[in-house]
Structure formats: structure tokens, C-alpha cells
């Protein structure tokens, strides 16, 4: 579903993503670990078509992103580190607007249900999102993924700054989406959440995939050691 083939991106001669090969199949949650500047966000931008690759190819649902980024984005839901919404609109209005832009129209009842499924308290749905916490905004992001019935989900450090309870709740929603066949690529620093939620983990160093592991095969302690080992290598 989400695939990169020898994907390469340079900024002013500096390599940000270096011949990266990735494949995230439907129902998989792939956690992309790596330090700051490793190329995680650049990879997501390349998959979204916000950046053009210097070499190689990003594919979504088998089609080249560079050839038709608009069509590629139609299959994707994207949740950044901070889901940004329109503060003068309520949660329902934001979801209505974004899901309409994503090509899906829903009734008000459906939208409220989607927000509930994403874990947003019922009383918050009609409140202006200017009053929302970060966790609540992230839930609207999840609701948007549900509303657009995206086949793939790109997450860029989605739990950063969330308290443990909100982070846990968010993880449960992700697992549920993966269980429904959504391909999820999550860039994160959070080794614990990666080990808990992902089906596979990739460690990105200097734009290159330094290691790739099935989470069933490694324990928490091992993951930290592996991560540090790849960084020092």
C-alpha cells in the first residue's frame, strides 16, 4: 500500500533520504524510528507528494506519487505531530469540512459518531476547537481518517506531547484501524509506543534504513539497545 523504492532526497547537496526501500502492507503498522534529522518527516513529505524525490520513487496503492500526487493523497490520511484545525469552528464543523475535502460527505449524526469513535467526549463535538487540548485535536485527526476511510495513514510523531493516558488511548485507536486493514506508517521517537503498537519497526539513520525488525521478535530492552547500536554504528 505504502512503498518507497530507492527513494532519495537531497537538500543543498546534503542527503536527507538515501535510497530508502520501504513497504507497508494493508493491516500493518510500521514504526519508523530515528533521531532528529534522520529523514522521517522528509519520507512522509515524499509519500504525500509535498516534496519531489531526486531519485527513486514513492508509491501509494501501487501508483507513483510524483506522477499524480493528488490521486495518491486521496488514499491517505495524514496526522502530524499537532493536528491543526480551524479555531472558530467546532469539532463537528472541522470534521465536516476536512472530510468533504477528502471526498466524503457525512450527516451530522455520522460525524458526531465518528468523533465519538475517535474518543472525543460527546460534549466537545459542538465546542469550538480553539478550546481543545492537543489530545482532543489528535482525536479529530483520527476521526478524519475514519471519515475519509483512508487506506493508508501517515503519522508524524502523533503522540509527542500527549500524556500517557491520551497516548494509550491513541494507540488503541491506531491498532483498531490497522485491524481494519489500514496501512499505517508512523514516524516516532517513542520506542515504547513503537514496540507496543507496531507490527514492524524500521530504524532510520542519515536517511538510510539501518535496520528493520518484526516487533514480535524483539523485547523492549532489546529495541533500545538495537536503536542505540544503529545510532553509534
Amino acid at each position, binding site marked *: 500500500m505504502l512503498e518507497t523504492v530507492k527513494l532519495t532526497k537531497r537538500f543543498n547537496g546534503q542527503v536527507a533520504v538515501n535510497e530508502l526501500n520501504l513497504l507497508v502492507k494493508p493491516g500493518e503498522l510500521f514504526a519508523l524510528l530515528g533521531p532528529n534529522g534522520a529523514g522521517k518527516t522528509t519520507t512522509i513529505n515524499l509519500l504525500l507528494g*509535498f516534496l519531489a524525490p531526486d531519485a527513486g520513487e514513492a508509491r501509494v496503492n501501487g501508483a507513483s506519487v510524483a506522477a499524480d500526487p493528488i490521486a495518491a493523497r486521496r488514499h491517505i490520511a*495524514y496526522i502530524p505531530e499537532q493536528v491543526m484545525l480551524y479555531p472558530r469552528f467546532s469539532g463537528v464543523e472541522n470534521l465536516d469540512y*476536512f472530510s468533504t475535502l477528502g471526498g466524503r460527505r457525512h450527516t451530522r449524526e455520522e460525524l458526531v459518531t465518528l468523533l465519538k469513535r475517535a474518543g472525543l467526549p460527546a460534549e466537545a463535538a459542538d465546542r469550538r476547537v480553539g478550546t481543545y487540548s492537543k489530545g482532543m485535536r489528535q482525536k479529530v485527526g483520527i476521526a478524519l481518517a475514519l471519515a475519509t476511510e483512508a487506506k493508508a495513514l501517515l503519522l508524524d510523531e502523533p503522540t509527542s506531547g500527549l500524556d500517557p493516558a491520551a497516548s494509550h488511548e491513541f494507540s488503541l485507536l491506531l491498532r483498531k484501524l490497522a485491524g481494519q486493514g489500514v496501512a499505517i506508517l508512523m514516524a516516532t521517537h517513542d520506542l515504547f509506543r513503537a514496540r507496543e503498537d507496531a507490527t514492524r519497526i524500521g530504524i532510520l539513520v542519515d536517511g538510510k534504513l539501518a535496520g528493520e525488525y518484526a516487533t514480535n521478535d524483539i523485547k523492549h530492552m532489546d529495541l533500545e539497545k538495537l536503536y542505540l547500536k544503529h545510532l553509534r554504528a
Partner: protein
Amino acid sequence: MISAIARKEFLDVWRDGRFRIAAAVVVVLLGVALLLAWQQVQRARAERAAAAALERENWLNQGEKNSHSAGHYGVYVFKPLAPLAVFDRGLEPFVGSTVFLEAHRQNQAAFLPAQDATAMRRFGELTAATGLQLLAPLLVVLLTFGALAGERERGTLRQVLSLGVRPRDLVLGKAIGLGVALAVLLVPVALFGAVALANLPEGDAGGSWLRFAWLGGAYALYLAAILAVCLAVSAVASTARTALATLLVCWAANAVLAPRLASDFAQRVLPTPKLAEFETAMHKAVQEGLDGHSPRQQQLQEFAQQTLKKHGKTRIEELPFNFNGLVMLESERLAGEVFDHHFAKLWDRLEAQDRIVTWTGLVAPLLGLRAASMALAGTDFTQHRHFSVAAEQHRRDFVRVLNEEMMNNTAGGHHGGVAGRSLWEKLPAFRYDPPPPAHALRAAAPGLMVLFLWAAGAWTALLLVAPRLKPN
């Protein structure tokens, strides 16, 4: 999708308290400007009508005198204020409202309203036209500077584009939403203007409603161009603050700098003579002929010889009419040629200056709009010229009748016999018919073309910039 974006944009703007305050200020200012102008135009028209009636009474009751003296007694004629001066006073404050018609002289309109104004006029006059020309673009700037740059900064643009929205659709949707928000403010002002026009006596004179419709089109083109420019700047600016600063500089250049620079430029390229120089040159041409080699006395002597020959006489006294009357007629004809030549040259020069200023509008659209707006409102120079020509034609008709009376009334010797009310009544009161809408449209055409080019160019630029819209 475009309609969803437009709807969201409209609601977002409408819910913004800052916009509501700014919009209320602009609408109230425009409304007050219209109301005051309506009162002012009504008062001025009533004053001029009353003055014209009084002047007619004075003319009819001037008593008995010879017709030549009546020619010097003269009459004042008053320029009726165009109904759409309610909206745009144009040059009205700076050109005279009254012309004194007398024998031998073509006078320029006098009594400029600006001469009676206080020093506050230096700060400009608030009319609905200046409000729409200067304040409405400022409102558009405040409305649009963050439309794309602000979304980029906040991160919502990234969110929107990640959903597969075509940047062009996004930009078009925003333009429509913001355009509707602007229309919601300005349509009531236009309706208020229509009500003011409808409630003005003879408000429909000179095809006012057709002109009003064209004015609406001209201002819509102007604001559409400004909207597109603002969105294009917002699309390419890295931050909302950069977009705002850029747009404010553009606004100041368009609204403050361009009109002054363009006028100075036009005066430098096509200078007009000072009033004293103009009067001196004309007086000299009257005395010496247009070619400078045909002195008036010599021309009149030749004319006397031709007349005597034509009538088979050797002495003027033998002619069957008062020769002085005929001389006056010939003298007026010769002077008329001089006046026509000099005034046409001056007026052509002033119109050429206006054309330079209007076409400079290709750099600053306000100049194109101002020209079109004044022309359509009937307050531009071409329509002042139309009035001046009509007043001069009336003067010539009036002087001709008096001179013919002098020529045919042989009883009183040199200046003819005494005439009275029956002759004064033969001379109709001055009645001015404003030019038809076609005249106004011809005068407005260059300005409208400038606005059309601006709107077409700005929207093309916006649509070219849109696909390059970057989320960060």
C-alpha cells in the same frame, strides 16, 4: 469541493470579530458619505436652480437699454450637478460651477467649491467613491493577507492539501468565499446608493441608472483585481506578516503615491499654460489673428470694403442697416474662431493629460478606476467640457440675437435703438442637457480597459501561482 471551501472561508471570516469591526467601520463610513453627499448634491442643485431662476428674472427685468449694453450686462449660467455626484464628486470641487456669458469674451467656469472649503480639504473628501477606492482595498488586504500564508503558518494548509485538494480549487474556493464576504458588505451600500439616487429630483437625468450599473461593474472589476493580487501575494509569501507588509506597501503605492506621481508626470510630459499666459495668448490672437499677421482692425476694414461692394455702396452710412451691428457679428465670428482654437487646444491638452494618468493605471489600478468612475458619474473633465461648450454655444446664440437686433434697429445710431423686455424674452433661458450615457462610456472606456486588464492579469497570475502552492 470549491463550494465547500468557499462556504468555510465565508463563515471563518464572518466569525472573526476583527473583520466584523473593520467591516462595520467601512460600511458606516460609506453610508454616512452617501447620505452627506446626497444632502449636499440636493442642496447644491436647489441652490443652482434658484440662482438660475433669479438670474432669469434679473435678465428679463433689466429695463430698457440698447442691445449692445444688454450684451455687456450678460447672464450667468449654472452647471447642473450630475445626479451621480452623490457617489463620486470627481472634478466638481475643482472646476467652476458658474459661467458668466457676455459679449466679446468666452469666460471659463468660475466659483470653485474647493475655494470655499476649509483647510481640511487637504486631507481629501470622503465620498462613497473615495471610500471604495481607498478603504475597500484596505479591507480586502485585511481580509486576505492570511488566507493562504496564515494557513501555511498554522499548518492547516498542510492538512488541507494532504487530503488531495487541488491547490487551484482551494484558491478559487477561498476567492469566492472572500468575494462573497465582501459583497455582503458592499451590496447594501450599493442599494443605499440606489435609494439615494432614486430619491433625488431628476435623479435619472443623463441615463443615471445605466451609468450606475456600469459604475457597479467598474468597482467590481477593481475589487476583483485587488482580491486576486492579495491572494496571489498570500500564496507566495512565506508568512502572513510578510504578506501583510507587502500588501500594505502595494496599497500605499496605489492609493497615495501613484495619483500624485502620475499627475506630475502628465504635467511634465504635456505641460499646460498658466491661466495668465493662456488669457494673454488668447487676447493677442484676438487682436492679431490666429496667424499673428491679421490684425483685427485690418480684417474689419477689409470686411467693410467687402460689405460696401456687396451692397453697391461707397459709404457705410448708405447701408440699409446699422453697420456696427454687422461688425459686431463679424467680430464675434472672428473671436469665436480664436476662442475655439485656444480652448480646444487647452482642453485637448487637459484630456491628453487625463489619458496619460488613466493609462498609468496599468501600473496602479486606482488611476484607471478613478478615471472610469468620474466619467460614469458625469463628473470628469470631458463632461465639464461638454457643459462649457454648451454654455459657449448659448453665449454665441445670445450675442448673435442681440447683435442682429443692433444691426436691424437703426433708430439709436451707433449702438442701435433701445430694446426692452420683448427682446429679452426672445432669448431663451439656458438649458443644459447632460451628455448621453454613450458619451460617458466613451470617456470611461480607457479606465474600464485598464481595470479589465488588471482583473484579467491578476486572476491569471493567481491561477498560475496556485498550483505551486506549498504547504510549508
